[in-house]
């Protein structure tokens, strides 16, 4: 009863706030920017027109698709490699211990610092960008997978042993699901890093993509277009995060359920 009473007003207010606050803020921005007459903060209607023309009109997704492709391929490669390698390392205490300092060190290197190296070795083409994105995302996924796999409850492992579960079943039905809350958390961190790296790599060395467009618009003084590119990134980040939350909700339904009951 108490929990209900505490939750219901918040639940009712939630959607109103979630929709209302952004509307208010956008309206304020609109009103202020149309009146302010500042060069670097063009009127919102101009930005939106540019948004429509640049990003939604004829050459549909000409700049967005290359970016998304790099992001998708790099991110997927990182998640696969991170989970695979992390599972391998996480299963053995010795491997875990010897890998830890190395992984921690590599993770500590700010990703853009690797760009000069990437360009040197792979040039400025897509492979370089995909690789850079993948390298950046790899660490959080890898570290969290190692942690998650290493932390699987011993009773669960013994249950798998007692019932003679074969390796594949053990991995797919016991170890990986048990580690999935941590893996998903790592993948989430990786996703935001991937978007950052995508933009940076496109700004430094590219002939297309969202990052390139933003920089190009700035350099040719098309300020509304520059802003519309930033807007695109915001929308993209929001949508990808939403997608991720949706996926996470399905994948970790059991986890939330179990946790909620534990707290009750």
């Amino acid at each position, binding site marked *: 009863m108490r929990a209900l009473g505490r939750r219901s007003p918040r639940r009712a207010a939630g959607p109103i706030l979630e929709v209302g606050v952004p509307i208010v803020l956008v309206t304020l921005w609109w009103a202020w920017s149309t009146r302010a007459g500042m060069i670097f903060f063009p009127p919102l209607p101009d930005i939106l027109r540019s948004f429509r023309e640049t990003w939604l009109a004829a050459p549909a997704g000409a700049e967005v698709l290359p970016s998304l492709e790099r992001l998708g391929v790099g991110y997927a490669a990182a998640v696969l490699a991170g989970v695979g390698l992390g599972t391998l390392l996480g299963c053995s205490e010795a491997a875990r211990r010897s890998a830890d300092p190395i992984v921690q060190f590599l993770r500590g290197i700010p990703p853009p610092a690797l760009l000069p190296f990437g360009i040197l070795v792979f040039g400025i083409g897509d492979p370089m960008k995909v690789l850079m994105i993948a390298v950046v995302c790899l660490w959080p996924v890898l570290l969290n997978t190692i942690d998650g796999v290493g932390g699987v*409850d011993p*009773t*669960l492992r*013994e*249950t798998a*042993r*007692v*019932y*003679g*579960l*074969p390796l594949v*079943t053990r991995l797919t*039905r*016991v170890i990986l*699901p*048990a580690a*999935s809350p941590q893996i998903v958390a790592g993948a989430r961190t990786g996703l935001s890093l991937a978007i950052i790296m995508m933009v940076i790599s496109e700004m430094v060395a590219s002939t297309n993509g969202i990052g390139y467009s933003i920089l190009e618009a700035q350099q040719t003084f098309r300020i509304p277009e520059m802003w519309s590119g930033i807007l695109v990134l915001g929308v993209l980040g929001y949508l990808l995060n939403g997608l991720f939350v949706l996926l996470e909700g399905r994948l970790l339904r*059991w*986890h939330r*359920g*179990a946790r909620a*009951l*534990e707290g009750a």
Partner: protein
Amino acid sequence: MNTGRGLPLLEITGLAKTYGEGRGATRAIAELSFSVREGELVSVVGPSGCGKTTMLRCVAGLLVPSGGEVRLRGRPVVSPPPEMAFVFQDYSRSLMPWLSVRDNVELPLRHKRELSRRERRIRVEDAVSSVGLARHLDRYPWQLSGGMQQRVAIARALAYQPEILLMDEPFASVDAQARADLEDLVLQVQAAYGVTILFVTHDIDEAVYLSDRVVVLTRPPTTVQETVSVRLPRPRDQVSTKELPEFARLRAHVFRGIKRQMAAAPEPEAGTSGGRLPGELEARESAATGGQ
């Protein structure tokens, strides 16, 4: 009456377990030998910390003993054998929270190639029904009470159709009513599935109530103090069986045996127990009043 039902299924000979090496070594189990015959239900009780769980894990092939051996149908056990199932004390950590009851019970059957999908499903549903959870097949373990979760773990073991079922203090963390129900469930399914059971518990009443024989262990370094045959009639019943003078006699006998062990404990331990039995060792009141 029930003893001597069959041939030895499980033989434990000279089992020893020492932790650590050299001067710092701790001898947990000195020497354990006993056997379990086919169709029997044997309980193992002993003073707190006597290595009951260690012993059971060695029997299961989860832990390598320092000496002696375990044989199942004459073959030495070095890793968990396929004819054996195990019910852990901590049911909440032994069931997979991401799998439904059905999938949890089915998990150990997935790699049994000789079973068709349909046979598997029937086995799962039979096992889950036999523990009284047919209505909960598609729920998740965390949606069930502790006692129900342990039922799921038992159903999983039954569906596996082992020749021998090892149970490690399976009811230690459920409430008293659920515990009595689960004890009766064990008796029921043992009759229905004809499975041999080795049952570790710290509850003397439970041991006497369930078993054909009770193996009483000494304190560490552990050996077998005595083996008590329980000749109470079956089917047993929480009320009428526990009213029998024979039940009272047996539980008193086992109780005294363990109490002697505790009294003989060296100074520091005797100090902590203060001459009374440690909290872990308890005879349930209902039985104490019902029997005397």
